[in-house]
């Protein structure tokens, strides 16, 4: 299987604090790759580096063999990489449709600078949005303001917005965070469905979910990789058990 996303000795410092230390990660094409670890392990920081949200201190990020370490964050969706956020990050006073439409519009370079005609809300734009609405089961909420959605629906839209850019690699930061037990199966269905068309890197706290959907898992602790393998291998690793002592694995 070929590698679509790879990091080499990726390190991220905040002042004297090292949030990520020499992380080597290889994500195989077409898989769901879990990144787990206790709170503060550096998982979100790692995603921020992958997505270009923050600059890396040293090391490399390769997307389909291309070095994107210093590629501006706003250019990465077009390069095939997009992300969702652990803390819901949407345009909350806009409709569900408009949130998705904006992400679609961003894909045509230069389109956002057009000021002489009205924004497209029909035709291929509407088709693209409706497709994501359908697979995220938000079709009934097309014109609802994001601030009026339930928390679970917002979490799904959070993934939906990242999906709009038709990524080949999708980074999902705890998509189920704050979701009720009842909503989680919906997310599992969505993830399994997405796996058919893109590679997913998934930060997740819910170990049940990780075991169910992930093909491979990397465990971070204190900014370092402490274990790697199939979900089964990792959950039997002593180091992982110790890392999670006191937390509910």
């Amino acid at each position, binding site marked *: 299987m070929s590698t679509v996303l790879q990091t080499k000795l990726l390190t991220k410092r905040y002042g004297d604090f090292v949030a990520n230390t020499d992380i080597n990660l290889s994500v195989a094409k077409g898989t769901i790759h879990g990144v787990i670890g206790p709170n503060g392990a550096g998982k979100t920081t790692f995603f921020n580096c992958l997505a270009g*949200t923050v600059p890396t201190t040293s090391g490399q990020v390769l997307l389909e063999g291309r070095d994107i370490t210093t590629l501006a964050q706003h250019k990465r969706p077009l390069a095939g990489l997009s992300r969702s956020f652990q803390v819901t990050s949407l345009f909350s006073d806009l409709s569900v449709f*408009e949130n998705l439409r*904006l992400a679609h519009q961003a894909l045509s370079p230069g389109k956002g600078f057009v*000021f002489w*005609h009205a*924004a497209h809300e029909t035709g291929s734009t509407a088709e693209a949005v409706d497709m994501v609405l359908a697979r995220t089961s938000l079709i009934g909420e097309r014109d609802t303001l994001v601030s009026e959605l339930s928390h679970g629906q917002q979490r799904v839209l959070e993934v939906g*917005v990242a999906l709009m850019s038709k990524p080949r690699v999708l980074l999902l930061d705890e998509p189920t965070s704050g979701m009720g037990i009842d909503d989680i199966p919906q997310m599992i269905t969505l993830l399994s469905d997405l796996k058919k068309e893109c590679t997913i890197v998934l930060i997740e706290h819910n170990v049940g979910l990780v075991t169910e959907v992930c093909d491979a898992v990397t465990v971070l602790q204190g900014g370092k990789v402490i274990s790697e393998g199939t979900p089964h291998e990792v959950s039997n690793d002593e180091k992982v058990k110790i890392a999670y002592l006191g937390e509910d694995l």
Partner: protein
Amino acid sequence: MLTKTPLFVHFLAAFAIAAVLPMLLPSYVLATEILLFGLAVIGCNLLLGYTGLLSFGQALFFGSGSYFAGLMSIHLNLGIVPTLLITMALGALIAILVGVFAIRRAGIYFIMLTLAFAQLGYYIAFLAEPITGGEDGLLDIQRPALSIPFVAKFEFDSDFSFYALTGAIFIVVFVLMQRLVKSPLGTVLTAIKQNEARAEAIGYNVKLYKIVVFAFSGSVTALAGALYAFMLKFAPLSNIDLETSSQILFMTILGGLGSIYGSVLGSAVFLVASDFFAELWPRWMILLGLLLIFVMLYMPGGVSKSLEDLFAKISAAKDQRGKKP
């Protein structure tokens, strides 16, 4: 909802505003002032209301517009259209320069940078006395004429003819801005205002968009400043001072953030109130201050939002009555 309003409706509305305004007011001069400050407020609203950028230095663009247009009319005599277009281009250029530096910082530091640039502009205008007239302002500005070769030549010497010119420009800019805020660009600006981090993450170069909106703001505000100088036939130093910046900002918040109609309303309420209070009492600035405090406290969303709410209530009440047997 206003969202789907066709452009010609905005055109008719702008036309109606320009046509009715002089009938409601004691003078063409006041009506002219309201429309041209309305343009300056639209320029401020693009930044603050649509993109979430609080600029405390709008007078830099307004005052520069006054000086550029005034100097061009004195030294070059190009006619009104080229004069105003060049002024707008220069206004955009200055705004881009300010934008490029100011957007490197966020929040308070951004605001202070816009203020600092405007103060810098003020001192340059103050010190460049041979060019700008310094403290006395730039005197003897003539209103350029509009000449259409072989057809006609329009002069704007009377209050009425200058109002007609301002009105025509107002209508054009008003309609263009209504288009802009609903365009792809306008939607990106709204996205940036609501969630900058996500706008960047889905693929927008937020910094570049901010610079672009500065350019639009600068050019529209410089246009307003040019019209003001032509109205006064004089470009006072005060056009580029802190008070002008805060006045434009007040009008913007007074009228309502993120509304082109509100922009005109903000300018109108501010100027009519000033005019009215000034006749009432020599210390009228105090009354104006009180009015502003009242609006901030009790009319969040500005006058335009309060009017909208009022209309909504009235129509709801009508519906209620309609339902009764």
